């Protein structure tokens, strides 16, 4: 039932994600903004294009819009006033953050002043807050202006053009800026500004905004339209055609506001030049949008000459939380990328540690070799025969096969070999007790009277020198466990086995050996390895409630101040899974075990005085690796959510994309596996690297499924039993 419920859950999730994505893709470019601020549907068709009104402000209600900018700006007498009389910096004001193709209509008035430089009003769009490029219209007092085009930061292109009219200080002017299909056009009082090069970089992110430089500029009747769709209309229409049809410009002299006098502005404005209020098409003007929240403080600070810090996003705590989560995910992914690189580069260029490899003339201690077996009639005989021939003093080597309630002929095979080799094999036929490999090992330990045990699964074939190689590190009094290298034997069976061969190669040849080199935390893997019995007993022996008794033992030994040593040249063949279902179950089990160990020992690692800081970090990263799959999926989900919420910062998406790709793609993992194959001298199989991505996807699903299962406690104690792969007899 659980499996069925999980399947339904995952399919539903998949369908939901697909639907939302399709929905998002079919929406107009300004979906996020539209969804947030526009309850009414006001559209207008201009030159074959239907535009939707996004913003319409007259500031008559005295509310400041929920917008952002920097510098000194405020509302005065119903006008938006941008104040930069000394030209310290360009004050700007941004009504919306993302508009795609847009039209910006407004009225503006430059206050009269006595400044030396040109007094300017700007209508500008740009592609990011970082000012990587911006493009727009600048209008000076007088009869000229310029179109500016910055395709790279600090690389302005400014070409002064004749506006064809005189812009008088203290008079209201009307202007329009249009960004459409990568071109910027501008009009002042209905007359198009000549554009030598209005081409603007195509970008997902455009940001219409107003600015003032070396002047104080008033804006009012601000309207912003965003492109909805193209509308086929007969004939060729230019934007200027439509503008030409608008009402002619009218000016009405008015008194200067007192605030101007307070600032002491002189010039033509000081002489009482009246203001002019243009007449827009009244049908386009709407009441101020009630959804815009008034500012209740927190106004940007005035600055001078120094770029201010980024303004706070005022979209609420949920977005902030999402951003924090997103940041955490990015940092986590980057950590693992760095880890991969450090390990790989260490293997390529670092000093390799094999300190115990040379110990061949010593008084070898007694050792018991444990071989847990549950229905292993196909392979148990072979491993026992091989062990009988290993190069180790026979009087100090005890072979102890653990026949745990096998229902096939495992028992008979063991007994026969025992009879044929008297004194060499001590069988342990387990007929009751707790299920599971850990419980079997725990019970078998009662029969062990040596200081050390080695463990081999029944399908492993140790070489003649392997027992000595695995025993050598135990002469180091700090070593609690030893791990050898597992090498797939059935490599050529199918794509899966070939991929697992690459993965194992990367995992052992690079990961484990690098951890050995760097004195971090090599992992005892439960087979092709051994343990110091006293050390294991000191940290609690085999834990039968553990889903991964080997990982659990590694960490308990670590916390107890015992080291695990990896012997890269102590190799042993294994049969890797050759079907995807078995592989997925294997990953499922490993994930459960790792996560369980992580939850058990995470906090204990921090306060432990027997481990070094580097071991703590590596130990946590090693256990946390199975969390990276769900974290990565969560990253995609959070990134998408932020996108839908209008936090359309391509940077965030790109960061996640790059880091994810680096984690799974050709940078980190590919590099590691290719390095492992290179070190193994098996370069031909490097060609299979692109398939590793497929294996990653399978792992992503399996690990996430296991993690979610564990989080929601769908996996109880009933999960502890003999997890085994059906082993087949090897070819001769």
């Amino acid at each position: 039932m659980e499996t069925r419920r999980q399947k339904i859950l995952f399919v539903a999730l998949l369908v939901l994600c697909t639907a939302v994505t399709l929905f998002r893709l079919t929406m107009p470019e300004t979906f996020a903004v539209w969804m947030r601020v526009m309850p009414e549907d006001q559209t207008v068709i201009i030159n074959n294009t239907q535009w939707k009104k996004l913003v319409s402000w007259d500031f008559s209600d005295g509310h400041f819009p929920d917008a952002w900018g920097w510098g000194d700006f405020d509302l005065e007498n119903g006008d938006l006033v941008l104040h930069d009389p000394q030209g310290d910096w360009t004050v700007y004001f941004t009504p919306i953050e993302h508009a795609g193709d847009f039209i910006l209509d407004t009225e503006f008035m430059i206050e009269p002043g006595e400044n030396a430089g040109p007094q300017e009003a700007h209508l500008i769009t740009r592609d990011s807050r970082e000012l990587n490029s911006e493009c727009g219209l600048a209008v000076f007092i007088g009869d000229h202006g310029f179109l500016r085009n910055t395709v790279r930061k600090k690389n302005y292109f400014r070409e002064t053009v004749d506006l064809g009219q005189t812009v008088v200080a203290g008079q209201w002017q009307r202007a329009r800026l249009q960004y459409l299909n990568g071109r910027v056009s501008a009009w002042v009082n209905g007359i198009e500004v000549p554009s030598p090069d209005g081409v603007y970089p195509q970008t997902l992110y455009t940001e219409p905004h107003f600015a003032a430089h070396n002047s104080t500029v008033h804006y009012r009747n601000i309207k912003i339209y965003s492109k909805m769709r193209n509308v086929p209309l007969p004939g060729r229409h230019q934007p200027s055609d439509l503008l030409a049809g608008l009402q002619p410009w009218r000016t009405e002299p008015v008194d200067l506001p007192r605030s101007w006098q307070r600032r002491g502005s002189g010039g033509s404005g000081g002489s009482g030049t009246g203001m002019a209020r243009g007449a827009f098409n009244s049908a386009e003007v709407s009441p101020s949008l009630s959804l815009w929240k008034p500012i209740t403080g927190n106004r940007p600070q005035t600055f001078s000459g120094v770029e201010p810090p980024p303004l706070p996003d005022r979209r609420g705590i949920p977005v902030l939380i999402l951003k924090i989560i997103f940041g955490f995910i990015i940092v986590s992914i980057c950590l693992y990328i760095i880890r991969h690189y450090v390990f790989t580069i260490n293997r390529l260029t670092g000093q390799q540690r094999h300190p115990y490899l040379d110990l061949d003339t010593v008084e070898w201690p007694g050792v018991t070799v444990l071989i847990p077996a549950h229905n292993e009639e196909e392979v148990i005989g072979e491993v026992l025969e091989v062990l009988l021939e290993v190069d180790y003093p026979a009087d100090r080597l005890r072979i102890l096969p653990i026949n745990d309630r096998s229902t096939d002929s495992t028992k008979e095979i063991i007994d026969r070999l025992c009879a044929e080799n008297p004194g060499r094999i001590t069988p342990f036929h387990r007929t009751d007790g707790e299920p599971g490999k850990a419980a079997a090992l725990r019970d078998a330990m009662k029969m062990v009277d040596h200081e050390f045990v080695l463990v081999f699964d029944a399908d492993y074939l140790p070489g003649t020198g392997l027992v000595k190689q695995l025993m050598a590190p135990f002469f180091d009094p700090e070593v609690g466990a030893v791990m050898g290298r597992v090498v797939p034997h059935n490599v050529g069976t199918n794509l899966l086995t070939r991929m697992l061969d690459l993965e194992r190669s990367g995992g052992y040849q690079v990961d484990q050996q690098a951890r050995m080199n760097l004195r971090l935390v090599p992992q005892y893997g439960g087979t092709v390895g051994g343990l110091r019995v006293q050390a294991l007993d000191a940290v609690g022996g085999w834990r039968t409630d553990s889903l991964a008794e080997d990982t659990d033992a590694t960490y308990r030994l670590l916390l107890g101040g015992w080291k695990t040593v990896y012997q890269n040249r102590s190799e042993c063949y294994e049969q890797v899974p050759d079907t995807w279902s078995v592989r997925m179950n294997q990953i499922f089990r490993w994930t459960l075990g790792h996560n369980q160990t992580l939850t058990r020992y995470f906090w204990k690692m921090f306060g432990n005085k027997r481990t070094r800081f580097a071991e703590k970090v590596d130990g946590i990263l090693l256990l946390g690796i199975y969390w990276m799959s769900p974290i990565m999926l969560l990253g995609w989900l959070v990134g998408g959510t932020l996108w839908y919420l209008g936090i359309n910062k391509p940077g965030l998406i790109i960061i996640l994309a790059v880091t994810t790709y680096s984690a799974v793609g050709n940078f980190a993992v590919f590099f590691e596996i290719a390095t492992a194959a290179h070190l193994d001298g098996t370069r031909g199989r490097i060609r299979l690297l692109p398939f590793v991505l497929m294996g990653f996807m399978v792992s992503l699903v399996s690990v996430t499924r296991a993690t979610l299962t564990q989080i929601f406690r769908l996996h109880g104690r009933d999960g502890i039993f003999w997890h085994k792969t059906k082993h087949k007899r090897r070819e001769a």
Partner: protein
Amino acid sequence: MSLAFASVLFLAVTLVWILLPLVPAFHELRFKTDAEPLRVVRRSDTNIRHFALGFRGFLQKHFATHLDRCELTDLPQIGELTDGTPFCVLPETVEEPPVDQENPSTEEDPHLVISCGNLKLDAAKTYPREVYARGSLSAGKGASLRAALADQSIYLGDGCTSYRWLHANGEIHVGQACTLYGRVSADRLIKMGDDCRFERLHAPRIEFGTPAAPHETPEEVREIDLEKLPRFADHSADRYLFRRQLEIPAGGHVEGDIVVTGKLKIGAGARIDGSIKSHDDLELADNVRIAGSVVSGKNMRLGEGCALGGPVVAEQRAEIGAGCTFGDEENPTTLSARGLKIASGVVAYGTVWGGDS
């Protein structure tokens, strides 16, 4: 170029770009050019006699008849193997390889030299192929050998060099300032002269220089309560764990294993009935006795007259003082370091490894 065409072209190029790496991948998957399991060493190759045994098998295969006819002739047999390797088989009565009459001043003898009895190699001459003596083999001063096997003993004069391996069923005596690359093994004794360099030695007894007189074991030692020493961290499984550093006072006696996460110093005459390990440098003063193994994560410095019973591992360099002994005749052991500097008078029973020693 229309926008639609450009889009299609872009997509097509992108698709090709993505699929390109899959071409060799599918080729490898289909034709399996590298799908064999990684070759695992099934039999241990750490046996120091590995090459000597291989060479003996080679002799048996190619020179069995020559060796059987040793007594039948008094003349060297010179010839070539099928692969073009020149050889020279000397009878028991001839101890020196014949001189090349065409070029008597040559400094290199290209032959694979096989002697039915004792063999004497010229001084300052190079033997780029293996050398075998059914009796003893002696090389003159400054001779260079690729590899040598002797059924009795090998005597190398001063300044000799061996490049691959040496093995003697009896003893190996090495003169001063010799350089021995690769493996050197003897079934009874290796006696090294002063200022020699080597990589790996193995024999029941290895003497460096002149054996020193045995140091007297201190009569009185006093028990040390390790748990009362500073920076004690843990005692479990008969192992004492210390953080940062530890110094065992002179004449102290400790039972159990000691692990220190920093430097470890053991005072003169101390006795440890267990093993010791330091993550950092390890220093033993004179006459220290350690029953178990000694492991240092970095450098190791042993004073004079130390006696170590178990294996000794230094991950970096080790300096061994005069008169130290490693193992004994009943319990041979291994001394291993990335670099070794051994004073005269040291005796090791078993194996000595030194990367640059």
